[in-house]
């Protein structure tokens, strides 16, 4: 949790007037006092950060080592042409702060490695995997397991996307669900596909913070933007998994 406990103020009661009937005052306070790390400030991370901030999550850490480029702009909706060549983490934090100066936003312009992934997840209640490659996703998944932090994974390609929510010790992890990563170059992505999945990640994080069962626990929830359908592919914990099972100390 982010430092001192924050109680609902009159300003909060007004700001979240249309949300408190759904989540309750206690739920809203849980959001205000929660800390979420968003790993990756790209097509998934931008909408996830926007909606988590709008919902009133009090502390958001945004991790990305990249700078904004022109070809990001079809899907990375926190950036514009004036931001090109600037740090994604820095610009994303600036934009989120401008939406709500009351929340603590912390940019981390770092590459996820075995050394950095531990400090980056320190003190977090939830980690959002909005990364774009499996080696970094597996690193984050392994550390989330080790620290016992819930992880909300999503990935996209073209018109399609997948969502998986990992509750350490209670559900299948990313390595159980996708033991062999797909190969190939960065895929084309329709901006709305990333938007839909990034919003779903924010929704899963909110469900966890509000004490509801995640939609994508023990299931890859797959979005098919060609047919407009969601489907669940059931996933089980792999007892020999190298991240959450017997294999975790053998690697």
């Amino acid at each position, binding site marked *: 949790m982010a430092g001192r406990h924050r109680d609902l103020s009159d300003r909060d009661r007004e700001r979240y007037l249309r949300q408190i009937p759904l989540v309750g005052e206690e739920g809203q306070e849980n959001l205000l006092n929660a800390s979420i790390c968003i790993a990756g400030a790209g*097509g998934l991370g931008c909408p996830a950060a926007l909606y988590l901030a709008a919902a009133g999550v009090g502390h958001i850490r945004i991790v990305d080592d990249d700078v904004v480029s022109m070809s990001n702009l079809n899907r990375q909706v926190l950036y514009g042409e004036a931001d090109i060549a600037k740090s994604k983490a820095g610009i994303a934090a600036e934009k989120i702060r401008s939406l709500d100066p009351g929340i603590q936003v912390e940019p981390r312009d770092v590459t996820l490695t075995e050394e950095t992934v531990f400090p980056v997840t320190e003190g977090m209640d939830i980690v959002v995997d909005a990364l774009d490659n499996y080696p970094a996703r597996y690193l984050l998944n392994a550390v989330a397991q080790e620290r016992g932090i819930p992880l909300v994974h999503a990935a996209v390609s073209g018109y399609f996307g*997948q969502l998986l929510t990992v509750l350490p010790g209670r559900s299948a992890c990313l390595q159980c669900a996708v033991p062999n990563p797909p190969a190939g170059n960065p895929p084309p992505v329709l901006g709305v596909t990333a938007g839909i999945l990034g919003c779903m990640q924010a929704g899963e994080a909110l469900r966890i913070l509000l004490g509801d069962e995640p939609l994508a626990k023990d299931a890859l929830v*797959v979005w098919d933007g060609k047919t407009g359908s969601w489907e669940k*592919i059931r996933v089980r914990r792999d007892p020999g998994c190298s991240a959450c099972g017997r294999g975790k100390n053998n690697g």
Partner: protein
Amino acid sequence: MDDTIHVRTFARFRELFGDGLEIAVAAPATVRSVAAELARVNPAGARELLDGEGNLSKSVIVMVNRERVAGAGREDVPVHPGDEVAFYPPVAGG
């Protein structure tokens, strides 16, 4: 009696192969022979379903009767008439 195998596909594979397919393969059928038949009737899709050696791509998630089949021997898992085999290609982008 039902003598075909039902094939379900998800996401990109649905776009490539269609969904709700009924295919006939010679007994004794396996996950490998079902994938090979899909690839035979759809060479464009074959490039994403199979690797360069004609084996099922490692990353593809396979379920038989909605139970995941994984590991080195998954292509040899037997499939019987009336069974359902499902294929999903996980995605990576962010």
